[in-house]
């Protein structure tokens, strides 16, 4: 069964360093999402792509976060510089239709020291 792939699974970094996360959605899924899940909370949307275009990045802290999906397939989420408050699970999800079921990856857990 096809799955959403994410890497790395775990990342420990020091404050002010740069960090990047990668996501490969299920083949054929045009919509891709990045969510941030702080421990004990529900996920919150950072950015939504439709193919290579950003649909919603209203909650993305653009002074330090960036996201791209250049060829409309895989995607990269970057944080520079990382801050202590960025420690969280970063979840990638994809869906075939904009209003279809979201399929989630296992997430990338970031710890900022």
């Amino acid at each position, binding site marked *: 069964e096809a799955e959403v792939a994410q890497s790395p699974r775990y990342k420990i970094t020091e404050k002010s360093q740069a960090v990047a996360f990668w996501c490969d959605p299920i083949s054929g899924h045009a919509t891709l999402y990045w969510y941030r899940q702080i421990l004990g909370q529900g996920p919150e949307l950072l950015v939504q792509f439709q193919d290579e275009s950003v649909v919603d990045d209203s909650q993305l802290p653009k002074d330090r976060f960036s996201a791209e999906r250049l060829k409309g397939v895989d995607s990269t989420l970057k944080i520079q510089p990382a801050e202590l408050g960025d420690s969280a699970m970063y979840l990638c999800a994809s869906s075939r239709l*904009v209003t279809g079921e979201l399929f989630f990856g296992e997430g990338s857990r970031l710890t900022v020291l």
Partner: protein
Amino acid sequence: AQTVTQSQPEMSVQEAETVTLSCTYDTSENNYYLFWYKQPPSRQMILVIRQEAYKQQNATENRFSVNFQKAAKSFSLKISDSQLGDTAMYFCAFMSLYGGSQGNLIFGKGTKLSVKP
């Protein structure tokens, strides 16, 4: 803006018993989707059940069913014959079908369910 509230941070149930998880939401939209997602420890989130707001009939998936009360903006999940594998965080989520938020899931804070042998 839409909000989703799960008022039970933690719940426990004995194996084979039935448990109900509560969820309320707020929206001014008339048509939307509601979801329950399950997040087992250290594993990815998976869809449990989906309800389309225009459908009056409550959704059912095997041992999982919902009680959808549109006027009350309530969407509870009932798990029958609980199994040890049902131990997980359960998230209620709202999906708008319109505008810039189309397709985005708005999650509650989750309910941690423990099934005890």
